[in-house]
């Protein structure tokens, strides 16, 4: 899925660093993350639990849990404006209007004491200064846009009267109320069953198409990534260890961690040997090793990996990784003769 390069990405994150101070030490939850997402493009953010996916997303909105978590540095440019230098009041005007986010659990993301209509009208009234019948009409329109049948009647329903899939659609409707420039979906389908999940993904694609949204899709489901993402970024221990076009990364992963992730998913119709699990434990983020964070679990680990963290290397245009194996000038033992 190649696109002509847009003049300017919707979101341009550079060297973002968010740390969390805990009793056990400082956790570098987001440690120098950089990526861009263009209009109408979908970036998949994958990685194990605790790899910093959600913290990266919250950092974009400047909603990291204070006071433990702090955004220490970097840039988050939304249409060219750096969000990290904005005041809190300016950020409030950006949240929802220009960046929206859908959370994982549809069961608790709606306020149980208000009807769907009341909750949906609130952001619309705020963003568009609509009132009365125009407001009600727009709310019904939004519900219809997320494929909720008989939207006018549903506006009177309360969250507990709707199923999980329905609720997540309502959350989706609220998220596109503005509509925003960037939509972040943090595992929005994890708690839905498979058919509903598939419908919801279809809906997201449709909404993205209509509003030309830049979409960041957080998941640990690689199947979903293959289905809806244009590019994918693999996170490990607070860093993006590999990023590239989905097809390229799925067929020729450069980083041993990406390779291991891909080998751990079963594929239909292919009779390979045993599925491989990734050896070892996810790293203790408060006590990361000196070099590459994946070194203790890496099958092709070298001396250098334990000493020095690898820099970002371009494997091919649009495909980057952080691995010594791919770093030019550092010839991997398997790749050829080392310079004497």
């Amino acid at each position, binding site marked *: 899925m190649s696109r002509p390069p847009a003049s300017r990405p919707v979101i341009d994150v550079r060297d973002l660093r968010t740390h969390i101070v805990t009793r056990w030490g400082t956790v570098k939850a987001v440690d120098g993350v950089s990526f861009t997402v263009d209009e109408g493009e979908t970036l998949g953010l994958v990685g194990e639990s605790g790899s910093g996916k959600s913290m990266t997303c919250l950092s974009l909105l400047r909603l990291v849990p204070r006071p433990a978590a702090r955004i220490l540095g970097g840039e988050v440019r939304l249409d060219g404006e750096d969000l990290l230098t904005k005041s809190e009041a300016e950020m409030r005007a950006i949240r929802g209007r220009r960046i929206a986010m859908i959370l994982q659990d549809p069961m*608790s*993301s709606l306020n149980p004491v208000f009807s769907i209509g009341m909750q949906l009208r609130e952001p619309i009234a705020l963003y568009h200064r609509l009132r009365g019948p125009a407001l009600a009409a727009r709310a019904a329109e939004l519900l219809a846009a997320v494929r909720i049948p008989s939207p006018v009647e549903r506006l009177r329903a309360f969250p507990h009267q709707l199923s999980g899939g329905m609720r997540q659609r309502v959350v989706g409707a609220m998220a596109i109320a503005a509509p925003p420039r960037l939509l972040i979906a943090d595992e929005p389908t994890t708690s839905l069953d498979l058919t509903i999940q598939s419908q919801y993904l279809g809906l997201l694609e449709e909404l993205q198409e209509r509003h030309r949204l830049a979409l960041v899709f957080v998941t640990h489901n690689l199947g979903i990534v293959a289905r809806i993402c244009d590019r994918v970024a693999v996170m490990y221990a607070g860093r993006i260890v590999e990023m590239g076009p989905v097809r390229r990364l799925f067929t020729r992963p450069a980083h041993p961690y990406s390779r291991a992730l891909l080998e751990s998913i079963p594929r239909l119709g292919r009779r390979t040997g045993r599925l491989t699990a990734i050896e070892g434990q996810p790293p203790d983020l408060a006590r990361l090793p000196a070099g590459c964070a994946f070194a203790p679990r890496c099958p092709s680990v070298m001396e250098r990996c334990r000493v020095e963290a690898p820099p970002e290397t371009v494997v091919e245009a649009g495909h980057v990784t952080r691995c010594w194996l791919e770093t030019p000038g550092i010839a991997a033992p398997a790749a050829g003769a080392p310079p004497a």
Partner: protein
Amino acid sequence: MPAEPGALALPELDVPAVTSRRALRLPRFPLAVIGLFVLAAVVAPLLGLPDPHAQSLRDRFKPPGWEAAGSWKHPLGTDRLGRDLLSRIVWGSRVSLAAGVVTVLVASAFGAAVGLTAGYYGGRVDAVLMRVTDATMSFPVILLALILAVTVGPSFTNVVTAIAVILWARYARVIRGQVLTLVQLDFVAQARIAGAGAWRIITRHLLPNTFGTLLVLVTLQIGYVIIVEASLSFLGAGIPPPTPAWGSMIAEGRDVVTRAWWVSLFPGLAILLVVLAFNLLGDWLRDTFDPKLRQL
């Protein structure tokens, strides 16, 4: 069991009927008692009762109407100044109910505000507010009211102030606890993501979710406040005479309880009935709307 093909063998279960009708069965006794007293308090001037302040020394210590020495002119008898007890109890209900409702409203509003603030902001704000709350809870209501009565003089306002100044801490504690769990829920995060500020989240998202708890707590506390007000009036630190108040009426009959039991008994029964009714109503509200609040 020989199952015929196509027939489903369902075990016969004794399934209780849908419980919605049962669950929403109103508590008749508490509602009737509270309704009766509220109605009496509101329409007291229209009931055609004798003036609660009218003294008649010839009629002092008249027993209730059904006693040999009594008369139906004074159905519940008279006190040491010959004032009609029924009339005084009816007028006294105005004082008790007003004190209960006003105090609880003031205390709940302030306590909820503190609880919401502490629970939402957490951290140092929470620590400070909760220590103040703890300190407040450890201060005896009666003592504060006595101090106020001695220094400023007893009055309705002082009774309400003295109780409310202590009572808010209960609300602050309970609401704060509830807010601590509420702020973890995604709809609060979702509101933040949509650009809501602290004020909007607290008033539009957190407060409405605590209304159930507040309603239960308010109802339970009205009974408690009525008792405290009566105790204060009994001690002379409450509603000053000659305004009829149940507590001071009991106090007036205290010395003569062997000769004229009715002077203390009837206002005491009034307190008992009203407080019991409010407690039962509160229990019912809690069980019906929020069974998780057992500890209240």
